[in-house]
């Protein structure tokens, strides 16, 4: 559905994105992940036909975002970082305007606006001026504006930035509901958000793609070492030493109360050995489990790996 090939964009002499390629299938929910200034917004701006690319191409349903942008703009809904609200307009009027300008048939404008007001839970504020709404509601009006013409593709640039935790949960839930019917591209620098909403992640750093994979795939491929967590009842002084003595154990660090984090090489039957040791010494195993890498770890690892050679 969306094909991006060797996309490059310069602002003056500064390279914002460099040779980015990826594909997104219909119905996917894809997350763009990267620190601020990584090129997430630029990529989204190019896909939504706002900016032309310096080189390379982006195609949606076979239409080029530069050559045939009008066709594309009919089927995308875009929510920029700052919701594009006219501060002096009433919510309903603003949504009617967005519907009109997005090409909704005049007769269907009212029903479309009603639909998004319902979906985004804007009923209580539908007669208020957008400039006076709280940030959370503004974001929701922004989202309503992006989906008022029922687009196939929703492009959401940091939809939860600047919201309080409750609002974040609400918006997230809304996006999850939308995921059933739309292809969604979402950007964020907040990691748990991506893990909760997206099936696939594209990690962008300094204008280049650091990784494209499903969440589980990413975690697996990046793991060069495994981590185990051992919790026991009877703590002795020399536990760490004894664990370190085992084959393939790289390091042992104490975790929370009675817990040890064991870093070890891949594909060993280390669990057996640890369990045996614990039984022999009567440590009393409470828990022994693998610790999967969080997206935070992956992210840091990827971005740090990128930086190290440069430094």
């Amino acid at each position, binding site marked *: 559905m969306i094909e991006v090939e060797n996309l490059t964009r310069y602002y003056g002499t500064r390279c914002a994105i460099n040779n980015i390629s990826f594909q997104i299938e219909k119905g996917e929910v894809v997350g763009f992940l990267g620190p601020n200034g990584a090129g997430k917004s630029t990529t989204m701006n190019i896909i939504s036909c706002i900016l032309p690319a310096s080189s390379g191409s982006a195609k949606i349903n076979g239409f080029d975002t530069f050559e045939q942008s009008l066709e594309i*703009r009919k089927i995308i809904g875009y929510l920029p970082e700052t919701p594009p609200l006219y501060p002096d307009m009433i919510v309903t009027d603003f949504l009617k305007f967005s519907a009109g300008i997005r090409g909704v048939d005049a007769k269907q404008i009212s029903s479309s606006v009603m639909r998004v007001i319902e979906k985004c839970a804007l009923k209580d504020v539908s007669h208020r001026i957008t400039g006076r709404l709280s940030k959370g509601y503004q974001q929701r009006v922004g989202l309503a504006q992006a989906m008022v013409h029922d687009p196939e593709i929703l492009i959401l640039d940091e939809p939860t930035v600047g919201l309080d935790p409750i609002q974040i949960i609400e918006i997230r839930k809304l996006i999850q509901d939308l995921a059933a019917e739309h292809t969604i591209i979402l950007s964020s620098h907040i990691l748990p958000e991506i893990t909760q909403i997206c099936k696939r992640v594209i990690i962008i750093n300094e204008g280049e793609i650091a990784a494209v994979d499903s969440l589980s795939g990413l975690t697996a491929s990046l793991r060069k070492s495994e981590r185990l967590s051992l919790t026991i009842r009877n703590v002795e002084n020399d536990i760490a030493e004894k664990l370190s003595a085992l084959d393939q154990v790289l390091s042992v660090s104490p975790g929370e109360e009675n817990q040890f984090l064991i870093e070890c090489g891949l594909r060993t039957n280390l669990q057996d050995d640890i369990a045996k040791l614990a039984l022999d010494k009567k440590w009393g195993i409470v828990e022994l489990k693998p610790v999967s890498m969080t997206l935070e770890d992956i992210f840091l690892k990827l971005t740090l790996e990128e930086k190290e050679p440069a430094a």
Partner: protein
Amino acid sequence: MKNSWIIAKRDLGSFFNSPIFYVVTTIFLIIYSYIFINILSFFNMQSMQSGQFQQMGMALNINEMVIEPSFQNMAVILLLIIPIITMRSFAEEKKSKTFRLLLSSPVQLKEIVLGKFLACMLVVTLMILMSGYSIGFLFMIAEPDIGPVLTGFLGVLLMAGCYVSVGVFASSLTENQIVAAVITFGFSLFMWVIGWGAQSADSATGQVLQYLSIIEHLDRFLKGMIETSDLAYYLSFIIFGLFLCHRTLDSNRWR
């Protein structure tokens, strides 16, 4: 065209929601009315005098002595006021980041430019029509010739169209509304006074400068003449301004 109208309608709504329109229109009408009353009372005084000297009455013409100078003065006030009306067009959209909404919608850039022009133009037309009360009043107390009045309105509208076109273009150059207003005012004023150079320049250059002057073309409209060259000047001025605006917005995306 439908899209332009949607954009224009939204802009008009925001004009009428904000105090700018009311303040500007009020000031415009007050200044215009004051000038009109003065012109009228001067004409009145002359009429009284001509009652004493019979031969002077021949020269008294309400079209030439009241309506024409009123329009000329209106043109000056419009020069001061139109930059305030046009300055928001694109500058505000860019500042409040709403321009992306328009850019990501299935609307062509030229439709956006046209919509913005249309909105400002309608506001200015409304103001000019409101000032028309004064001439309506003249029709109640005297018998002016309607022809020059209508061509006068047309001329003033076309001239205002040039200011608006410059204003919309200036607004596309910057995010700052004040900068946009100053550019509009400066450029419009320059196009106004450019004809003054005609006296000191040699005859060929002088003619060109004279032709370029925005006010030069208004005179014939006020006298009741519609000349193709004047129409061509105003229309091409407007179209050129909008064209530059379109190019500016388009090139902004590449930077």
